[in-house]
């Protein structure tokens, strides 16, 4: 049993925390790979910009300015600071549902990135700054995993994490290989950067060795069963957590978002990954993004903003 508003907040904490971590990695890779002026650095910059915006002019600037905007733009924009502020604001609203250990981690990160010293720390050593945030976010997730009950609240937190993650990986795939956006990445350095942005470089190398090819990267980020950021892995987790939280809901026969999640999971579980053409991959990624948006809306309608008529006590 959990308040609908609380479930919603936990879901958003999951989303924002995941988003903040992802944007830290994007900013870090962007700064790193644009140190030298080569064709690949241009590809990386283009990829990052299209992964986080739909041609937002705020990011059509020098890599440094783009990294600053990604990291600590005002709380209005889509930035690491904004995501963390929102995660923390949501956490404050459900403070009674989080363990103290979990809350402290998130609060600490927030205080650091919004503190007066943050802009200087970022400009002095951006990589270190971003790396520390990522490490702190891992501590947050670890504290949550180790101290929170893995019940309903946990389920909503994880749903937020994995829906956000599936969308982020999907967008990254579109930015890197999507035909609609033109000019897929080809440079070796750019492909490595793409793997870095999804935290996949080391797992990829272990699986495919240093044989870096667009086809294999795509296959890995979409269909790998064990890599925690692949679409297959994330959609399986979405299905798992959604059926967990939906167990006690009586929808009076109507289909809930579980059906959608199950179908999405099956698309990846039974896909013919080895023979999928680039065009079909694009279509599949687009489907994932659409269905995640529908899942997002479905969760809100079924668990949070449901109509009272349906649920009044008999």
């Amino acid at each position, binding site marked *: 049993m959990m*308040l*609908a*508003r609380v479930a919603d907040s936990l879901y958003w904490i999951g989303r924002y925390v995941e988003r903040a971590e992802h944007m830290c990695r994007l900013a870090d890779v962007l700064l790193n790979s644009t140190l030298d002026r080569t064709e690949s650095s241009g590809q990386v910059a283009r990829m990052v910009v299209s992964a986080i915006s739909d041609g937002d002019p705020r990011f059509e600037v020098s890599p440094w300015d783009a990294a600053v905007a990604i990291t600590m733009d005002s709380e209005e924009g889509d930035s690491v600071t904004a995501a963390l502020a929102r995660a923390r604001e949501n956490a404050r609203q459900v*403070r*009674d549902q989080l363990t103290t250990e979990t*809350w402290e981690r998130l609060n600490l990160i927030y*205080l650091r990135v919004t503190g007066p010293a943050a802009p200087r720390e970022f400009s002095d050593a951006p990589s270190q700054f971003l790396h520390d945030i990522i490490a702190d976010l891992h501590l947050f997730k670890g504290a949550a995993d180790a101290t929170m009950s893995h019940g309903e609240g946990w389920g909503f937190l994880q749903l937020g994490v994995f829906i956000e993650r599936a969308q982020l990986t999907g967008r990254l795939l579109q930015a890197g290989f999507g035909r609609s956006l033109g000019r897929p990445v080809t440079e070796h350095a750019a492909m490595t950067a793409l793997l870095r942005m999804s935290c996949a470089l080391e797992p990829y190398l272990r699986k495919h060795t240093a044989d870096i090819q667009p086809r294999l990267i795509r296959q890995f980020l979409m269909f790998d069963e064990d890599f925690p950021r692949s679409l297959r892995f994330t959609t399986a987790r979405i299905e798992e957590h959604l059926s967990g939280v939906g167990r*006690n809901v009586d929808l009076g026969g109507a289909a809930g978002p579980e059906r959608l999640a199950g179908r999405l999971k099956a698309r990846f579980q039974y896909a013919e990954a080895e023979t999928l053409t680039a065009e079909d991959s694009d279509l599949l990624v687009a489907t994932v993004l659409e269905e995640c948006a529908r899942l997002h809306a479905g969760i809100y309608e079924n668990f949070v903003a449901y109509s009272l008529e349906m649920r*009044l*006590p008999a």
Partner: protein
Amino acid sequence: MRYALADAMQGAGATVHAEAPYDEMVDPSGEVRPHYAALARRVASLSDEDLAERQRLLERFFLLQGITFTVYGAESSTERIIPTDLLPRIIPAEEWATIEAGLVQRLRALNMFLADVYSDQKILMDGVVPRELVLGAPSYRREMQDLFVPHQAYANVCGSDLIRKPDGGFAVLEDNLRVPSGVSYMLANREAAKRTFPGSFRLAGVRRIEQYPDLLLSTLRSMAADWRPNPQVVVLTPGVYNSAYFEHAYLARLMGVPLVEGRDLVTHDNMVYMRTTTGLRRVDVIYRRVDDDFIDPLTFRRDSSLGVAGLFNAYRGGNVVICNAPGTGVADDKAVYAYVPEIISYYLGEDAILPNIETYLCREPSQLSHVLANLDKLVVKAVGASGGYGMLVGPHASRAERESFAEALSANPDNYIAQPTIQLSTAPCLIDGAVDPRHVDLRPFILSGDKIRVTPGALTRVALRKGSLVVNSSQGGGSKDTWVLGAGEQGDHAP
């Protein structure tokens, strides 16, 4: 450090005159009182750096826990912690025994008073308390008339403000029977003190206060109807922007009950439900931290979005319990306050154990003229106001301020009471790295349900500005941990 401490003691000892404040640590001859001896030795043995480090630890604890309030600026907002003092305030066992007995007596009488005022009104018939004073008070709720309240426990949570007078005796300055706050600071101060002074703490024989959330939950459960064997208790908060939000979340978490906002609750067929992920779930007891005016837009203020439409009807129907009951404010009204000793003797046939502060009711012509003649010595308060608003502190006000206040007072005397300016007692505080006495008050918390429960501890509020008597956190006040010693403990052990 030792010298600074000695200076503080000397200072307190040397300036004894008629109205010198009572010093919690040092007696008039300059000797450290026995229950403070261990702490004084411990503090004296620490270097300035040690003390500063402990103060930092303390502040970090509050910051990490998010026990903060937000200061909104033009560009950005920053979060500050409520100032917290490192050095605990210590109350010996026998003094606490008197305080506790006095608080229990007072709350019993006030609950009986409320039950009477909202039913037969015997006390008004007998002329003990003026009828118009009660029925004309803005906090009087006609809607509560003849409504059944279990155990006649109207004020389930009470936080009374006590002060220690120069003669060493405690007196009640104010009762808070509506939605008293501050108990989370009592608990958080203790949690912090255990980290900063672990050794002294263990040895001093301090009584536990950590049971407060359990006692609160038992109290709230005892208010539920008998036929609801496993009552669902919730804490109702105005929301995250309320300055006491931390406390609401803290209590809900420690009691293990949901923290709800008005929008989480719905009423249907005179029952109250909360919206959960799996549907609606019945609510039995609401520990509301929302003022009377805002709990139900259908019954009270229509423009309130903090409450629940239909809540009061569900309450009238006996399907939900609201704690504290609406309308308790009539018993902590500043004018009714003056009658509390009479109220106690009327219902209990006892003398008040904890005295009131002498109070002049400006509605009485003879008392009004006395007040007007002595404005420079008195504190004048508006009856309906709280939080230090609508108040004149005579000795600190300018002539012009006093004159304009006198006009307002003469125009509407019913609205004012006056009290002599009391020198609050002082307790040692760590100010800019040195130990220096500051004025303090004491807010213990009393619970009443099937029985009255007092937690042996309190919130000690501190006026951090030197010489200031204002302890409100909105006006430069802070707080500190309060140690109530167990019987047989003198606090005089080697720390």
